[in-house]
């Protein structure tokens, strides 16, 4: 019952506020949604301690959904350790973001609508993580996509926001295309879409092959690959990442909740959830590793050149998601979830902190027009520092570290210890990105909070520390950013049985994870050194010698442009996909439908009838000799016919 309430309270709140928000008024709407989600968060914490570490799995069937032939699945709530962890991440961040939004959106005329969307999102995300079959997962998947669409386009007067909202939905749909095909393949092979049945039968299916298009492929490889395409879309992995930076058009609390802490991690969740399938499909795991690593690198480099404070954090999210994926690709599923967990805290903190800055700077997002804010906003500045250090992964192995230190180090250690496809590549890329992460984080901090103030006098005069309603949620997140790692590292990645049966790992994978824990101190500290070097570099470039970066950019103009324009992905897609689709659509309409089908079909037919009619009308000239002549010819033809054939 508790879990049913946990999932449905936010949905109910969204419904009430969505339908009657205007009648209820602003404050009641904000309270209803925030309290509902907070209650969910409390339940989630209780549930966390009840479920994790035991084999107990709660499954509550709510309603049969679709039953047709052998296809049969229900609306249900499944709570196992994996779900319990996700419950905590989702509801805690969601609750904090709800409270934060009350302050952040205080000048917005559409508060009830905003709160309803936030709660709707929370509900969909909870449905996603608590599904007991792939189709309900898909429901949550599309539901969070919808909420994301609505929230990115929340300021519907802004054309850029509208464009970004559609882009997010459509690019996600490209991923969903793969996901949907994956579900179809699962049903074809397993005759079921329920996790329990599918995962149980997976070992039997391993090694068999099915025909897909013109190919004959390993069954589990193709299924997991298709699922992974879906994950790439939702988690903004390279090729399908283009929507995430644009999604920053939405209000900042949305970016924190959806585009950093929860929704974008759904892809990672999917891979981990389906670990019994992925684990038996080494080729796909290799792909996951390589895609994750490339994304981490790509996004890390792009983040270096962005000037919009939110975009830097967005690319950083993209990059960190890459880390999670390559951890999952190396079969270290628990580590991937661990990083997801810690990342949720420090990245939500960074976004909300950035939100406070933007709020203070009269909606300015360009870091080139900031600087020197630390004196004006010491609390926010400190919290952003903590979040960034956590993100950069600072800590001393065996003593203490910020949250990001534990999870990121562990990922790199797994990559070092693993012999799976792409592990070596992932390790070196991961190490490089650790440096990049610290560098762009430091750049963000120094450009925003330190150095010379570059904003107008009038803006600076208004800049102020955020109100308590915004700072309290940030403080909670700060606590998470500091302590979540040390609190969870042991339970998440070392304790046997913590995950119950939620995560499946082959013995060899378990072995690698154990090995990763026992690496020499030097190897463990290498990423930290990389991070410190990155921070130092940032300090050198942006505080000590601030004239250097423009000069470097000038000297390496092509490289700088390449990074500034995000590797030109948008331009390439525009030229390769969007414009051809429009051109094709226009051509098929005008030429295909218009000239060919109608031209030869009804219009052509009508024209022909008209032509014949006109010609036969011409025959009736009214001149007697015309008719006589025609009769003569007729007689002649008839007579000849009889002479020859009669």
């Amino acid at each position, binding site marked *: 019952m508790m879990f049913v309430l946990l999932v449905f309270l936010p949905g109910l709140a969204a419904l009430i506020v969505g339908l009657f928000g205007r009648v209820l008024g602003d404050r009641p709407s904000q309270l209803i949604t925030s309290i509902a989600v907070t209650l969910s968060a409390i339940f989630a914490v209780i549930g966390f301690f009840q479920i994790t570490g035991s084999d107990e799995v709660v499954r509550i069937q709510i309603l049969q959904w679709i039953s047709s032939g052998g296809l049969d699945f229900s609306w249900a709530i499944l709570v196992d350790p994996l779900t319990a962890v996700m419950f905590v991440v989702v509801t805690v961040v969601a609750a904090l973001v709800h409270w934060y939004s009350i302050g952040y959106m205080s000048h917005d005329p559409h508060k009830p609508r905003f709160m309803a969307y936030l709660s709707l999102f929370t509900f969909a995300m909870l449905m996603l993580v608590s599904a007991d079959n792939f189709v309900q997962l898909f*429901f949550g998947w599309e*539901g969070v996509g919808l909420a994301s669409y609505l929230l990115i386009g929340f300021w519907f007067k802004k054309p850029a926001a509208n464009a970004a909202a559609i882009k997010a939905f459509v690019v996600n749909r490209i991923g969903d295309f793969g996901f949907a095909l994956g579900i179809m393949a699962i049903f074809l092979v397993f005759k079921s879409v329920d996790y329990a049945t599918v995962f149980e039968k997976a070992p039997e299916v391993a090694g068999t092959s099915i025909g897909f298009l013109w190919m004959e492929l390993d069954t589990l490889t193709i299924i997991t690959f298709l699922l992974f395409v879906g994950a790439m879309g939702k988690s903004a992995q390279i090729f399908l990442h283009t929507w995430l930076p644009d999604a920053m058009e939405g209000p900042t609390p949305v970016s924190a909740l959806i585009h950093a802490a929860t929704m974008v991690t759904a892809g990672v969740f999917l891979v981990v959830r389906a670990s019994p399938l992925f684990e038996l499909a080494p080729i796909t795991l290799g792909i996951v590793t390589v895609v994750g690593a490339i994304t981490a690198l790509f996004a890390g480099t792009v983040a270096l050149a962005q000037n919009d404070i939110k975009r830097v954090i967005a690319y950083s999210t993209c990059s960190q998601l890459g880390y999670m994926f390559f951890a999952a690709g190396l079969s270290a599923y628990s580590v991937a979830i661990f990083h997801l967990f810690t990342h949720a805290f420090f990245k939500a903190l960074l976004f909300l902190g950035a939100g406070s800055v933007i709020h203070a700077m009269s909606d300015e997002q360009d870091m080139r027009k900031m600087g020197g804010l630390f004196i004006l906003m010491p609390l926010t500045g400190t919290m952003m520092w903590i979040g960034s250090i956590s993100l950069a992964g600072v800590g001393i192995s065996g003593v203490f570290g910020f949250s990001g230190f534990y999870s990121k180090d562990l990922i790199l250690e797994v990559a070092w210890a693993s012999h799976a496809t792409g592990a070596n590549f992932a390790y070196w890329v991961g190490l490089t990105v650790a440096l990049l992460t610290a560098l762009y984080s430091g750049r963000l901090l120094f450009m925003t909070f330190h150095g010379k103030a570059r904003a107008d006098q009038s803006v600076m005069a208004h800049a102020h520390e955020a109100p308590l309603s915004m700072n309290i949620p940030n403080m909670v997140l700060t606590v998470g950013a500091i302590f979540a790692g040390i609190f969870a590292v042991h339970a998440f990645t070392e304790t046997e049985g913590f995950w119950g049966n939620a995560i499946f790992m082959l013995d060899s994978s378990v072995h690698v994870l154990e090995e990763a824990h026992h690496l020499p101190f030097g190897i463990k500290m290498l990423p930290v050194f990389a991070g410190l070097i990155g921070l130092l570099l940032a300090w050198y470039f942006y505080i000590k010698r601030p004239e250097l970066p423009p000069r470097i950019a000038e000297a390496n103009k092509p490289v700088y442009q390449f990074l500034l324009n995000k590797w030109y992905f948008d331009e390439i897609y525009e030229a390769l996909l969007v414009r051809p689709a429009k051109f094709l659509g226009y051509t098929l309409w005008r030429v295909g439908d218009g000239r060919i*089908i109608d031209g030869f079909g009804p219009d052509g037919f009508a024209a022909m009838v008209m032509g014949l009619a006109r010609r036969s009308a011409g025959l009736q000239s009214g001149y007697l000799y015309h008719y006589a002549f025609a009769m003569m010819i007729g007689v002649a033809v008839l007579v000849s016919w009889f002479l020859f054939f009669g």
Partner: protein
Amino acid sequence: MSDWPLLSLVIFVPLVGALFILMIRGDDAIVARNAKFVALWTTLGNFVLSIPLWVGFDNQTADFQFVEQYNWLSENITYHVGIDGISMLFIILSTFLLPICILASWNSIQTRVKEYMVAFLIMEATMVGVFSALDFVLFYIFFEGGLIPMFLIIGVWGGANRIYATFKFFLYTLAGSVLMLLAIMAMFFEAGTTDIPTLIAHGFDPSLQKWLWLAFLASFAVKVPMWPVHTWLPDAHVEAPTAGSVILAAVLLKMGAYGFLRFSIPMLPDATVFFTPLIFTLSVIAVIYASLVALMQEDIKKLVAYSSVAHMGFVTIGIFTFNQQGIEGGIFQMLSHGLISGALFLCVGVVYDRLHTREIARYGGIVHRMPRYATFFLVFTLANVGLPGTTGFVGEFLVLVGVFQVNTWVAVLATTGIILSAGYALWLYRRVIFGVLEKADLKSLKDLEAREVVILAPLLAAVIFFGVYPQPLLDVMHVSVENLISQHQVALEGARSLFLAGR
């Protein structure tokens, strides 16, 4: 109650209503008023009357129910009606939508109101007749008879270019129906009857089947409409009055696909298998082609019309998979599309009534003036996109699951439709609803009035309820669809063993 000729009542009550309306005399305004009310009460009454068909329906049998049979033209051409799990829901859909259509025309039709209402009532009778006829001649009469009121509705109460649209509609359907009539005659000469259950059991010669099948295709493909005989639909929709578009999209288009289910597949199993690749090809083209074309439309109604073509492509794919998920998905998709496209056309009608233009560029930012409308339109748009939790998802998903088991090419290509549909539908929504409210005449728009809410709310409720809990609909179909599939298989095996014995 059970010995009442319930089905015939549902067919003929609208005609009685039409007669009443014809008898109304007097002042124009009074005639119009009375005609509207008589039509509304008749259609509402008929909807209530049709509910026992569903309540009393036995889900456990594939036999025809509520059967009535009387001698008519001869002993072999009878008045024979009855319903099974495939047809019943379409009758409910028709009777459910009719009162909504009447209400939707309440203010927008100002001329010849009496005749308009009569046309709609006659159409209702023929629609119910099509889905309940168990005699081929009877079916043909209803099938073709329903076109006449539709021609009139488009041709008399339509937009500026209505004559062109009517003639195009007429040419296409005429070409198809002539061939179907020939096929019916051929069947009659071959089997000696036009009774549908008898014909299903007859077992036609495989070589004859192919010709008959093609003749049916000509008629049904136009109705669906399948690519490339779809071009009448955008024009017809654009010119038709709102309620006409609703009926056209929601019910008339379903007759083609229903024809495949009722005739082509059970009567001509060999030819059906032979031509399935053709259907798949045309359907996949329809999905992709129509979606791409929809992307570029500048007229709201045309966009929705092309999206209909794409969605009906899913239907024909599903029907020809010959497995439970595919066929049930196809039928479900038809019902769902009936609700959703009907609702979308009603939504277009709402703004058309206010501004008298369908050009997308003339709109923008109307959420500022019409928030309630924006909400309704959003839900229907998302249902059209196939968002899980709406009926649109259930149909598409079942079809795709069904076809994936048969042919992965078709599945992959058809699934691209879910990407494209998101593109054109959301883009339309954005251009009409979102943005800054700039145009002067949009600034005085009024939000939905009570009548319009009453029209849209039941559709919204149905789309969401059956999206979350589709079982009441699927349960009705299960046994009939199972029976259709097993019959189909038996017929195929029978033909094969005969063929082997002949050697």
